[in-house]
């Protein structure tokens, strides 16, 4: 069941009953503390160019598997922008990009029925990748965790905790799909 409350930027924030854990980057490995007491700050990078929107496959056990917006957890005394840069560099070796100065959306996410419980504040940044940016899946195959793919339309199997970003994905896709848009 989703509960919705109004938030900043005129968008909705979401509270959700959920699965047992967040799949993907292991929070426990990243930050050595129990996550029963901590609100995690997350940047989500909505990367696009003339090829469409770049999404990554999340192979979940507790969460349904699906496509997700690449993201990173903000570390202590690190700015949101720094984490955006590090996420782009570490996950995509992407150094040359154009990023929105401010986040374009923010959401509060709470996972109430799970152990460990979780509470996230997510900030979405729009990132325009260079025209010649090529994704490198190394030896990953479709269906593998973190497999990357461009999309010209929003996939139906977006992971549940990213569905509040559908309108943002469609917003940038409307730019991408404009005839003659070259980034």
């Amino acid at each position: 069941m989703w509960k919705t409350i109004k938030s900043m930027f005129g968008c909705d924030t979401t509270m959700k009953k959920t699965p047992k854990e967040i799949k993907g980057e292991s929070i426990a490995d990243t930050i050595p503390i129990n996550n029963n007491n901590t609100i995690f700050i997350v940047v989500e990078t909505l990367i696009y160019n003339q090829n469409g929107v770049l999404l990554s496959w999340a192979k979940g056990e507790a969460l349904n598997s699906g496509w997700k917006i690449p993201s990173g957890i903000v570390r202590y005394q690190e700015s949101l922008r720094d984490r955006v840069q590090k996420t782009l560099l570490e996950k995509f070796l992407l150094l040359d990009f154009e990023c929105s100065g401010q986040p374009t959306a923010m959401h509060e996410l709470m996972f109430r029925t799970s152990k460990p419980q979780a509470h996230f504040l997510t900030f979405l940044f729009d990132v325009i990748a260079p025209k010649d940016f090529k994704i490198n899946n190394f030896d990953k195959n479709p269906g593998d965790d973190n497999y990357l793919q461009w999309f010209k339309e929003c996939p139906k199997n977006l992971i549940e905790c990213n569905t509040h970003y559908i309108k943002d994905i469609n917003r940038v896709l409307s730019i991408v799909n404009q005839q003659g848009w070259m980034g």
Partner: protein
Amino acid sequence: MKKTIKGIENKSIKNAISVLDRAGFRNNDNDLPIDTFNYISRITPMVNVDILIYGRNGVLLSWRDDIHGTGWHIPGGIVRYQETLLYRVRKTFDNEILFSNSECPDIKLPDKPISFTEGVHPGQKIRGHFISFLFDIIVPSDFYINNSGKRPKDKGYLKWFKTCPKNLIKVHHVYIKDILRVLV
């Protein structure tokens, strides 16, 4: 070979986390014990709400005297685990401004923040990283401040200002333009 992080065995880290879990019980207001809270504020960003309260009398500020300095500040509160920003706004307004059970039906609480700022304070041992959301509340001209026995220089003492005070605490200097905007 035992898995370690910076020379500390994983087992020791798990034990430490287990101790923290036990030390992380909360009171009725969802507050952590202060030592646990201070530890967490040394390793993860904190989220807080600040409330710019204003009306015909000016801007309402509160006296502060703690690690962040001594001076006037915009009333605010730290968002607890598993509570929403709006819940903490309401709670802070009730606890720090209204104090008692008085109800103010004419006051409309905000439904979204007007801005957010990132505060990173590298030299500070605790509470060195904040994500702060600023909300605003307009109060009627007959809005009564209840200082409930507090005197000037007491922590939490409330006062109206028609101009931005010079001794606004440093971490709230980012809000000077917001204060001046509502004072116009």
